[in-house]
């Protein structure tokens, strides 16, 4: 049996679009979704910009086609919207094998908890939202909507969460636990997260400038993205379109500091290197990297150093797409996996908008305009708190 795991479905909702087509359109037209805050109720409304999905609770409930009487968090609604797209795109059929759901989130239902927390503690008005707080809630809401029962779980490893859920999803298939997996992540913006990152003083008040010498920090975003994974022979037998092959993956720990990356990017280096080893590819084989590139001083410098360590003077084209979507945290890995797959599929690399000047210490330059090129192998990175570093390797599907 072939061990090749392929991607057969995609679904996404972020500040740059409510589906794949809209997202692609924004990317090729260099249209950022980051702007003034209009949805999140916060005293920092005029101090920061965010990559918000400009939809109210009611609008999201309508898009997700769910019962408005039930308690829904933004995190769950995004998850349902994106996972449904992926499910339908892959034409998943519950009679054809076991389906698993591996979802990721960083703050779970915090977007509602923080609105009602005082009530949780002091009266009983918003009790319905007490049990939507835990991280597994959005996963179960998605599973219930899609009637998935065979396997479900939730991963939370900060900003690398949804690369890890894709990785685990692929391994569930390889180990015969399930036949197909919907994997990805979801996070709704919350005051908790905005204020948290603000205490770290790594939020840019303007649109972020990843890999630029003048970068001042990141912008937060929100949304969800899911991909469907299955074995190649499965997909072929069912006559499905195949977007890409998941040819390598790795997770490593930087073991340096709770929030900052090590000087030379040990964890990021290991994640990229081990992903290549897993895919039996060498650095020269990589055509493009969708980098983590948050726009913070520390990330871009150390990620850049790790890339130089691995690729030397043969650094492939790279760009960060954080300046489009914002940093969507638990969804970032799967959002950027989908962007990487769109790159592969369309032989198109999306520019690192807002870049002007190289960072002196590393002297590397991301692509700054839409570039067309035959792409075979694309790497995508996500690094998180706790030194949690992951890379996935997607390759153009070649039939066998």
């Amino acid at each position, binding site marked *: 049996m072939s061990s090749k795991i392929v991607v057969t479905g995609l679904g996404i909702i972020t500040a740059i679009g409510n589906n794949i087509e809209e997202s692609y359109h924004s990317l090729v037209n260099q249209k950022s979704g980051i702007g003034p805050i209009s949805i999140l109720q916060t005293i920092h409304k005029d101090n920061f910009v965010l990559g918000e999905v400009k939809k109210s609770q009611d609008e999201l409930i309508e898009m997700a086609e769910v019962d408005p009487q039930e308690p829904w968090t933004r995190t769950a609604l995004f998850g349902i919207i994106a996972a449904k797209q992926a499910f339908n795109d892959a034409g998943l059929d519950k009679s054809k094998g076991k389906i698993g759901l591996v979802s990721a989130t960083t703050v779970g239902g915090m977007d509602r908890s923080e609105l009602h*927390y005082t009530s949780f503690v002091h009266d009983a008005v918003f009790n319905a939202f007490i049990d939507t707080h835990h991280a*597994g809630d959005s*996963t179960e809401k998605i599973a219930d909507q899609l009637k998935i029962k065979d396997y479900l779980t939730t991963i939370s490893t900060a900003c690398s969460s949804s690369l890890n859920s894709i990785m685990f999803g692929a391994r569930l298939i390889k*180990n015969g636990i399930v036949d197909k997996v919907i994997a990805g992540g979801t996070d709704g913006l919350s005051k908790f997260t905005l204020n948290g990152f603000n205490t770290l003083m790594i939020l840019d008040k303007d649109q972020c400038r990843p890999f630029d010498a003048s970068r001042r920090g990141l912008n937060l975003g929100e949304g969800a993205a899911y991909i469907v994974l299955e074995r190649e022979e499965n997909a072929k037998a069912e006559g499905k379109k195949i977007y890409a092959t998941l040819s390598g993956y790795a997770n490593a720990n930087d073991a340096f500091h*709770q929030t900052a990356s090590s000087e030379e990017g040990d964890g990021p280096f290991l994640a990229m290197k081990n992903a290549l080893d897993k895919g039996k590819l060498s650095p020269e084989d990589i055509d493009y990297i969708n980098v983590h590139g948050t726009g913070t001083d520390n990330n871009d410098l150390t990620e850049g150093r790790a890339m130089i360590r691995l690729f030397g003077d043969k650094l492939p084209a790279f760009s960060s797409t954080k300046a489009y979507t914002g940093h969507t945290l638990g969804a970032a890995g799967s959002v950027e996996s989908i962007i990487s797959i769109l790159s592969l599929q369309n032989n198109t690399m999306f520019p690192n908008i807002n870049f002007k000047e190289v960072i002196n210490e590393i002297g590397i330059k991301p692509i700054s305009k839409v570039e067309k090129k035959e792409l075979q192998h694309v790497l995508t990175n996500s690094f*998180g708190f*706790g030194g949690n570093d992951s890379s996935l390797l997607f390759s153009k599907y070649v039939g066998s």
Partner: protein
Amino acid sequence: MKAYINGLGAVAPQETLDKDHFLDQVESYNENRLQIIQPNYREYINPKVLRRMSKIVRLGVVSAKIAMEDAGLDQPDAIITGTGMGCQVDTEKFLNAMLENNETLLTPTAFIQSTHNTMGAQIALMLGNNNYNFTYVHRTFSFESALLDSMMMLAENEASNVLLGGIDEITEESWLIKTRIGYFKFDSINSLNLLGDKQTGALAGESSAFFVLSNKKTDNTYAEITGTSTFYKPESIEETQERISNFLSVNKLSPDSLDLVILGYNGDPEYDQLYQNLEETIFNLCSVAYYKHLCGEHDTASAFALWIAAKALKSNTIPEIIVKEKKKQNSPKNILIYNQFRNINHSLILLRQV
């Protein structure tokens, strides 16, 4: 897939650190909230590091250290944790400060440590360990997902030794909140009188249990884990019975051939009924044990049950305090741990003696 338990360490509302005792002197509680007996952290953690760690992180690090020491392991090839609610103390601290000060004058430490993967990260940091590091956060699937991942890592030859942990804490605030929605009991009872209490809700609790899992047996091996599985929202008790029987038959066992089942009775009559039903049907020939009168209900309680089962298999003793029904007289050769959360998340762990 299989894994040997080559080392373990736990902290719980019971005495667990003394190797000469195995639940023979039991603590009982009248507060409906069973809290971990805190160890002397300084024996295990450098004070410079300690100052920033909240309780759950300290407990995770301590139990991880004990497990690794027990197995004689310096560096695991993977660190995999499960936690249903994560770092609640830090989450509440940051959330309350944010709400009270209207988003001003906030400091970063609680926010940073509120991340669910803090325990795994701090263990890696302390060991200088660059390996695979995952955290599962799905209610009562959390520990079992981490266990499945660990067993997959061993099966894939990606790891020879995995450090696996399950950990959850109960704060006063989260206890009050969940008492309000009926998850926990309101009127206090003695924890040892958990069975048969008519009041809605469970007793709340917490624990941290870590294991070194390996693909090789050593002199210190406690038991072999032969399988784990989870299932979600069964439509009927018959489906539950069928799922359990199927899981056992995949592992070449039948319910009748089990020596002991450890069930997740938590004192909530509505959901304890499910265990009772299984005791009277598929498990009617097995000895039955329970444990949440010792540690209270929490998302990773089954990790503590695994700690009990592994020690029981190694020492050939079943502590009297966990016995509910004794139907088989021999010392157990195989044990099934079955747990469910409000008939939503069901999980199974199967072990055998080596």
